[in-house]
């Protein structure tokens, strides 16, 4: 019973079945949009939405059955790899003996045997004597390990991929230039500056940041932008999004104290909670038609070309909406408000991840590419040749058989033409 189960789990047929099921579920996972609100499925699929939710087809890739398939594939790969390496090592020493025991599969006359020999030597095969007038030609002996390396690397990719997917802690945070984010473990991520455009007006989205670890080590100031995160210790900081905030300097006319506020949301700036200034919004640009009507523009790509503050003064119960521009000043409720240039600030994605998981994953990627290359482009060559003909052996004889027959046919054709 156990033996049968073992044979099933390690069989190629089982592996293929798992791959086909993974592919089929993946098709469903792209046909049905994933991870939306439940109400969206109810609206879009009406009668079928219950079935979709019950079968978790709205979140296929995180469903238990999809994960189970991946685990089973991992098991299949483990058993395949173990069996494969054992077979390969066992067969390694026996292949030549087996080849020499076999009768000649392709009888040839002496002239054609010479042609085959020349071709094999031109292919840089190693020639070895294996008895009177019997030669064995070999190449790419290491090619027999290609399949094992490939399977092992896929298994490692599954393991380290899962680690790289589930171990990191990721948070998205905004931070104004000149300020710092304090992380749970005491790490400090400081944004020195941020720019949306470079000096020539091209979109750039670059932050200058530094990381200080709890043990006092510092990264120094580095630029981050899309595709160029900063990695330091177990932290990795990405330039993710950006936004623009209003900036107003408030001067207390009585005390002479002043402070500058960076504003993103609706806020009331006041001394007595009655008289003061409501900050409502900041717009990138506006259009004023000939009759003086103003249309505020809410979307631009890049820096705000002509920022407009939408505010409202509150004075003894009288509210007056006002549009203000950087440099403008207002006085209300014992305060003077100066509208400054807006502040551009980044949205950062902060990832805390053990570096080993990512490094090992990348190593398994390299191993997979090497494994596939060796499997398909360094297939072992093992040919026995004597004065009567030749036999092709080794784990993958097909390519050599076709190649030798092709050479012979080609030379025959050439001779006929001559």
């Amino acid at each position, binding site marked *: 019973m156990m033996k049968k189960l073992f044979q099933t789990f390690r069989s190629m047929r089982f592996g*293929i079945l798992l*791959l*086909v099921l993974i592919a089929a579920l*993946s098709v469903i996972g792209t046909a049905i949009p994933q991870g939306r609100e439940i109400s969206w499925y109810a609206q879009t699929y009406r009668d079928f939405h219950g079935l979709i939710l019950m079968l978790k087809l709205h979140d296929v890739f995180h469903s238990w059955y999809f994960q189970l398939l991946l685990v089973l594939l991992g098991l299949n790969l483990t058993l395949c790899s173990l069996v494969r390496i054992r077979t390969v090592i066992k067969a390694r020493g026996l292949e030549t003996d087996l080849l020499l025991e076999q009768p000649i599969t392709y009888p040839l006359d002496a002239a054609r045997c010479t042609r085959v020999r020349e071709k094999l030597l031109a292919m840089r095969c190693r020639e070895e004597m294996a008895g009177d007038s019997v030669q064995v030609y070999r190449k790419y002996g290491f090619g027999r390990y290609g399949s094992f390396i490939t399977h092992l690397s896929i298994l490692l990719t599954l393991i380290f991929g899962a680690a790289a997917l589930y171990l990191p802690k990721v948070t998205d945070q905004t931070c104004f230039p000149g300020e710092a984010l304090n992380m749970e473990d005491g790490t400090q991520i400081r944004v020195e500056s941020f720019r949306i455009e470079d000096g020539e007006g091209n979109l750039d*989205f670059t932050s200058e940041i530094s990381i200080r670890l709890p043990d006092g080590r510092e990264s120094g100031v580095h630029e981050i932008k899309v595709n160029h995160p900063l990695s330091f210790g177990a932290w990795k900081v990405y330039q993710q999004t950006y936004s623009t905030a209003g900036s107003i300097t408030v001067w207390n006319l009585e005390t002479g104290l002043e402070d500058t506020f960076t504003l993103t949301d609706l806020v009331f700036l006041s001394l007595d909670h009655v008289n003061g200034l409501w900050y409502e919004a900041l717009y990138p640009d506006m259009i004023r038609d000939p009759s003086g009507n103003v249309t505020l523009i809410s979307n631009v790509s890049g820096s705000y070309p002509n920022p407009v503050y939408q505010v409202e003064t509150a004075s003894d119960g009288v509210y007056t909406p006002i549009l203000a521009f950087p440099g403008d000043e207002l006085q209300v409720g014992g305060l003077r408000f100066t509208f400054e240039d807006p502040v551009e600030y980044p949205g950062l994605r902060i990832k805390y991840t053990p570096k080993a998981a990512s490094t090992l994953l990348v190593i398994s990627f390299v191993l997979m590419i090497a494994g*596939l290359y060796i499997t398909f*482009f360094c297939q072992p060559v093992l040919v026995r040749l004597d004065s009567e003909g030749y036999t092709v052996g080794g784990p993958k004889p097909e390519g050599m058989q*076709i190649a030798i027959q092709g050479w012979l*046919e080609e030379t025959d054709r050439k001779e006929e033409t001559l």
Partner: protein
Amino acid sequence: MMNALFFATLVAYFVATALQFSAIAFKKEGVGKSAWLMFLAAVIAHTVYIVVRGIMAKRIPLSNQFEFSTAFAWGVAVLLVLLHFRVKADWLNAIAMPMTFMILSYAALQPREITDLMPALRSRWFVFHIGSAVISYSAFVIAGCIGLRYILLNKKGREENSLKLRQMDWLSYRLVALGVLMLTVTILTGAIWAEEAWSAFWTWDPKEVWALITWIIYIVYLHLRLRGKKQGTAMAWYVVIAVPVVLFTFAGVNTLMSGLHSYG
């Protein structure tokens, strides 16, 4: 000027295809030779177009659907030329020539203006990721073309174990192997790039998933064919039927599904 060169290339591919069909229909060897020369001229014009576009854009021209389709058609054409010189695969012309023409026709339907490389695509992985995809898709398409030729020859009564068919089957297998290797490079470099850009190696984005589906389809092919257990007509049908999946991954996903790979 660039448009003229592009359409001249497209017309040259069409003429080469038409001549190739005429050569088969009227059994004229000379016409077949003309078709091949016309095809070579088209490949040269195509290469010049891509190089000039790259110089004008000051980057590798692979950044949008038009540029990728143009490179894909070029990849198919170059593979056909390589096979012609390496294994004298003239028998492939009648299938691969129209395929090249069709892929370039799809490119002609896309916006052709040269734009700056968007910040998201400015990465050292860009060339490896997209370049390997071009080679991979081209290899799969040519493997499919060989599969189709195999089926047609087999229908004409040629035995499955004849050397010609075995060579075709083997060539198709080798191209699938090349395609799988290159698609693996595409997926893995994409994963590393995704981690640098979006913080995660894998996000189940439709393009990623369809690349994985394509990879699985061809991995299954390689396993079925392993040690010659399944060969011949069945596998020829397999590589032919797999081509629409490749084309869907290439064009269908971008057209029908929104995701992180929607770069125009």
